[in-house]
């Protein structure tokens, strides 16, 4: 997107709008005689995504329908991790869930890079891991311990894969779409 703000039909009189500096009431500048909430644009420094496949020109095929393109358009830098890098995306890969390379700054090959979340088309959510995550998130101590194990005391992506991704994960091939979009 990259525009400064957008009007929204909604949120007026809500505590959400009341508590946020980036949501204000504004009159229709075209003389329609009404007011709406306008929301200030988010301008992320960096956006991070995981997709199914990318090519050498930085074009990304997410593998599922997604509003990620909007986030990419709003962000200053875009980094995409992918299951695999190919020379050039096929025409089929460019249809749906496609992010053109012109919006992408860096592509990083990272097999199982979405784990423990899903990469639709490759593997599902790792429910067992997610349950552990949710339990850890219940207290600061448990969460610090979770981070220590999975992030700080894990040397690199390969060690993460070896220690935390189940054997043969996603090898069943194409999996049904799950939680498409959001």
């Amino acid at each position, binding site marked *: 997107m990259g525009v400064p703000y957008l009007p*929204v*039909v*909604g*949120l*007026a*009189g*809500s*505590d*959400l709008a*009341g*508590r946020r500096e980036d949501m204000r*009431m504004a009159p*229709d500048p075209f003389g*329609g*005689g*009404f*007011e*709406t909430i306008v929301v200030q644009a988010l301008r992320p420094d960096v956006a991070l995504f995981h997709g199914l496949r990318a090519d050498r020109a930085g074009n990304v095929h997410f593998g599922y*329908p*997604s*509003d990620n393109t*909007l986030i990419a358009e709003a962000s200053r830098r875009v980094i995409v991790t992918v299951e695999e890098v190919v020379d050039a995306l096929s025409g089929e890969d460019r249809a*749906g869930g496609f992010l053109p390379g012109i919006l992408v700054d860096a592509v990083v090959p990272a097999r199982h890079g979405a784990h423990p979340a899903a990469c639709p088309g490759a593997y599902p959510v790792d429910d067992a891991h997610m349950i552990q995550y949710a339990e850890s998130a219940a207290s600061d101590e448990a969460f610090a311990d979770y981070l220590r194990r999975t992030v700080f005391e894990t040397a690199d992506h390969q060690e993460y894969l070896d220690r935390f991704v189940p054997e043969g994960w996603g090898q069943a091939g194409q999996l049904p779409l799950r*939680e*498409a*979009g*959001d």
Partner: protein
Amino acid sequence: MAESCTGSELIAVLLSREVREGELSACGALSMIPAAGLLLAQATHAPKAELLMLGTPLMPFATSRQFHFLAMRGDLGLFFVSGVQIDRRGNYNLHMLGEDQDKPRVRFPGGYGGGMIYYAARRTVVFRTEHSRRALVEQVDFISAAGRTPPEVLRHGGPTKVITPMATLGFDAKAGVLGLESAHPPHTPGEVQERTGFHLGDLSGVPATPAPTEAELKALRGPVRLRMIEEGIYAEWARANLGGETAA
């Protein structure tokens, strides 16, 4: 004598009666009872109702952004939403509970879609599977979306009803308050007032809600249940909650 039904079935039937023929009606993700209500309407009085259910095969768009813009341009007739709290002024809360908004006692998902659709849909019907003083309150702890806004605010519609296992409350858009429209037998208006955290208005002459008809329950437990299972619309829920042992 009306056939007995579960609370979920009752709410599904009452929601289905809100659907109008030919209109676009929708519900959000993880909305099993509204999904059953929408399909029931299509199977009974509104065969040409257009239905949209986020997170199910009956979602025509690739992502919810397109649905939100459709609603904001005023094309959505009816939406079903639930909230943790609903108050007398038709405000609903799906954010948090607690006296201090900076220190919530419990946090909920928030109002990502609902905070917009409450204003954009022509009619929003709020449903709640619990009718209690903690759910129906004088004032919500957090306004996720407001029942009424000043006339200059662009808004295509707002809340029209609140449906619970005990009663149907009607929203008086002019006065901006909820009142008791009907009580579901065997519950009496007095009992409904007793279990509600705000004044429901004059209770004299409040009618009993017409009970689910045999035809409605038959359709809900037969073709609607079957369609949910076959098309993968909350199939497990439909199997467990519609009909069950009472299914013909």
